[in-house]
Each structure stands twice: as structure tokens, then as C-alpha cells.
């Protein structure tokens, strides 16, 4: 369970990315956060694993206060929260397997990670994660030699290898083409259903949000402006979230196609 209690983030320079946010995400939910860029979606997601510190209020993950956690405690919280990024964030020069093994660092002693000698059990977990996203045959290929969609699946495998309770995905399909976007979103949906991991996804495409989100949260100017089911999120709701009428740019699959 993720609990935001009056959470605020003000960046140096005065930009308010989160304003007194109250939000509870129950375990096992698949939540899609929508909003324009700059609405605070990325900040919200990064507040959950403490990559962005709060300037006010609290965020709790399974009851543990992220802001109060010391270095070791924070790493323990992060180990239970896998993260997927818009730009994949892979080390391109090294193998797919080494990238996925980054998800096992939290369970690996420093001396072992220094010489790159991971335990057999951790390598097995990394391989299983790659099998789950269907690219285990690429384990020893350099990450740079993979297509964008394949790289994002390596990113998902890296998060899964952590064996997390929660998956955060920050615009996971924004760098991908439409068919690949659906593949990646279906992977996330499947992980949520089969493994029961709480999944929080930032999206800016409304049609993807409606198809994959059980619950949709609308952000605007750092505030929560909508919280409801995908079914109830009609065009008027999205107009409120976006503060303007909708255009073809707001959907992934254009109606003509």
C-alpha cells in the first residue's frame, strides 16, 4: 500500500510539482496517472521510492515513511519497489543479463558486486525475469544491440528481478512506436494480474490510459484533479485534466488508423 499524506514537492527555483497531495493506492491495484507534461506525474512516482525528496508531508510504502528512512532503510524500501523508465536507462555497453542483475544489487554483498560475481540464485532470478518478458535468448547480447521495445522489456525484467511488491513506470511507452507500446503495456498488465504487484504507470496517451488503467488519477499543476475508474473517465474529465479540448496528439492510435 502507498499512502500520500499532504505530500508536497517544491523544486529549487520555486516550481511546485506536488501540492498537498492526499492519495492512497491499495496493494495489487493498477493505477494510471495522466496529465500534461509538467503536471507532476514524474515527481509523484519518484516520491514513492524517494528519488525525489518531499518538501512537506509524508509518503508511506507498506507503512514505512520514505522521507524518514535512513540510507539502509531507504535501500530496503527501494528494493521492494521496481522502477521502469521512459528512456529505459540501461547500461548500453554491457550485456542484457548484467543489466537485469542490477535488480539484484540490493541482495548482493558489496564485495561480490565489485568483482561482478553474482550468486547463482540471483542469476537464476534474472533469467526468470527475462523469461517472463520473453527475451531470455538475448541474455548475453549487448543492450545497445536491442530494439527500443526489447530494451524496455529488459528494463521491466530488471525491475522484476528485484522481486518487488510495487512496480513504478514513468512514461514507459513514450519512446516507443504504437504497436510496441501495446506490447509493453500488456506486459505490465500481465505482471499486475499474475504476480499481484501494485503497478503505478504514468501515461500521457488517453486511449492507453482508458484501456489499461483500472483506476485513473488525473494530475494538473501538482494537484489531483480526478480519481476514478477508467469507465467513468469521459471526455469531459480529460478536458478538465488537460485544461483544454482534446486533440489527435493526445491519443496513441489515431481514429483514422
Amino acid at each position, binding site marked *: 500500500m502507498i499512502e500520500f499524506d499532504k505530500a508536497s514537492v517544491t523544486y529549487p527555483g520555486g516550481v511546485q510539482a506536488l501540492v498537498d497531495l492526499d492519495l492512497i493506492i491499495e496493494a495489487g491495484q493498477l493505477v494510471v496517472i495522466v496529465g500534461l507534461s509538467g503536471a507532476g506525474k514524474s515527481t509523484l512516482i519518484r516520491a514513492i521510492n524517494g528519488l525525489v525528496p518531499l518538501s512537506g508531508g509524508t509518503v508511506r510504502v507498506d507503512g514505512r515513511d520514505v522521507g524518514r528512512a535512513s540510507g539502509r532503510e531507504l535501500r530496503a524500501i527501494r528494493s521492494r519497489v521496481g*522502477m521502469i523508465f521512459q528512456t529505459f536507462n540501461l547500461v548500453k555497453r554491457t550485456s542484457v543479463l*548484467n543489466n537485469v542483475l542490477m535488480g539484484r544489487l540490493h541482495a*548482493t554483498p558489496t564485495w561480490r558486486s565489485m568483482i561482478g560475481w553474482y550468486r547463482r540464485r540471483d542469476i537464476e532470478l534474472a533469467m526468470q525475469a527475462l523469461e517472463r518478458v520473453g527475451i531470455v535468448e538475448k541474455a548475453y547480447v549487448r543492450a545497445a544491440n536491442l530494439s527500443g521495445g526489447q530494451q524496455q522489456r529488459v528494463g521491466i525484467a530488471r525491475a522484476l528481478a528485484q522481486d518487488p511488491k510495487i512496480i513504478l513506470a514513468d512514461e514507459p511507452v513514450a519512446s516507443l512506436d504504437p504497436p510496441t507500446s501495446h506490447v509493453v503495456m500488456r506486459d505490465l498488465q500481465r505482471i499486475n494480474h499474475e504476480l499481484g504487484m501494485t503497478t503505478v504507470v504514468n501515461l500521457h496517451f488517453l486511449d492507453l490510459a482508458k484501456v489499461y488503467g483500472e483506476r485513473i488519477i488525473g494530475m494538473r499543476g501538482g494537484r489531483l484533479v480526478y480519481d476514478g475508474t477508467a469507465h467513468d473517465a469521459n471526455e469531459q474529465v480529460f478536458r478538465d485534466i488537460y485544461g483544454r479540448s482534446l486533440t489527435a496528439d493526445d491519443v496513441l492510435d489515431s481514429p483514422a488508423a
Partner: protein
Amino acid sequence: MTATPLQADAGRPIRPPRSRLLPLGLVVSAAITWWAASDDFGVGFSLGEIIDNLTRGHRVLREVLSPNWAFFPQTVDPLLETFKMAIIASVIGCGVALPLSFLASKVTTPNSVTYLVDRGVLNVIRALPDLLYALVLVTAIGIGPLAGIIALILFNLAVTAKLLSETIDGVDTGPSEAAWAGGASRTQMIRSSVFPQILPNYIAYVLYVFELNVRASAVIGLVGAGGIGFVLQVQMGFFAYENVAVIVAELFVAVFLIELVSIRLRRRLV
């Protein structure tokens, strides 16, 4: 095609005024160069002087152009000593430089104290030339390769840490964010996401430093710090330029060979 200026101009921005900084900078640098070279204020640099004195060195030139190859066997052991010194100094200097480079980059350093202290120490080490280190160390611990090795280690440490910390500044920080998000410690983050990115550069710097060391041994040997430079100093003292020529030729070949090997190695690594 006829131009329709009125229509084309509509909505176009006016060109912003050009910066005068570049022409000003060029004028200022020209003035400083003239000042440094002039007879009245500077060192009195003139190409004419070189040409006037060219004939004076003709004995040296003639002997250098006819090397005494019989001298070659006497240079083999000192040349090997130079290589050994360069290997030891490169391995130790570049090895110590690696962790210090991580402390000297904002991307990987734990806090501003470690950053500033490490930068300060490296700047102090780099401020002194290797020849001066050799001179001081020969006085302190005596003539021989040990003084040379330590001088080279300090030099290698400073050069490698400078180049490497700037390389670290430029790495893609996306993978580091992923490592943090996965619960990695700073050491693990550096090892898993930064180190693989800088490895090819690091190896290139180690090879470059090794090459510099072989060349530098000619200079630091002059003050008694061992290697081929020591032989060079003795032969120059005897004005035996035909022997000096042999040493210069050997150094030329050595540096050339190292360059060949490092180009091949780098090509494989990238």
C-alpha cells in the same frame, strides 16, 4: 523566382545583435602574444636568430645523423629498466587514480567535502611537474629507479584522475538512477552503472600514460632517477652525440610501437 519581402518578413524574428566577444578575444590574444614575444617587454623571440645560429650546431647535427650503433648493447638494460619503471608506475598510479576519480566527479562523489578535498589534493599533485618530483625524490631517497618510479606514480595519478573524473562527469546518468531505484549502495551504483561506461576511456588513458612514462624517463633520468635517461645524461656529458642519437632512435621506436599496440587494443574495446 520573385522575392516578396513584405509577406516573407511577417512573423520572422529580427536577428539578435551579434556578440562582440569573439573579435575582442582575438584582438586581446594577439596583443598578449605580441607582448610575450617583443624585444622590449617579452623574451625577444625572433625566427632570424634561429637561422643565424643554425650553422653553430652543425657538429652536433652531423654526429646525431651518424649514430654509433656499436653503442646499442649498452643501452638494452637501461631501456628495459625504463619499461619496467613505466609498467610499475602506470599500474600503481592509474590504479590509485580510479577510486580518486570517482570522488572527484559530482556524478559519483558522496558529498561536497569528499569532492573538494579530493579535487584539492589532485590539483596540488598536478601542480608540480614530474621532473621536480624526480629531483626532490633523488635528493630524499637517493639516485636510482625507485625515485623515478615514485615521481612517475605521482604524475600518472594526477593525469589519469584529471582525465577520468572529467569522463565520469559526462556519463549517462540514467543507469545510475535505475541502480538507486533498485536499492543499490553508492559503491554498487558506481560499479554497475558508471564503471562499464568509462572502462574503454580508462584503458585508453592507462595506455597513454604508459607511453608518456617511457618518454618521460628520458627527462627524469637526467636528474638521476634511473632508466634510459640516466645513460642519456652521461653520454650528453661526454658530448657523445653519436651515442645520444642511438638512444633517441630507440625512444622513437618504443613510443611508436606502444602507439601501435594501444590503437589496436582500443579498437577492440570500443
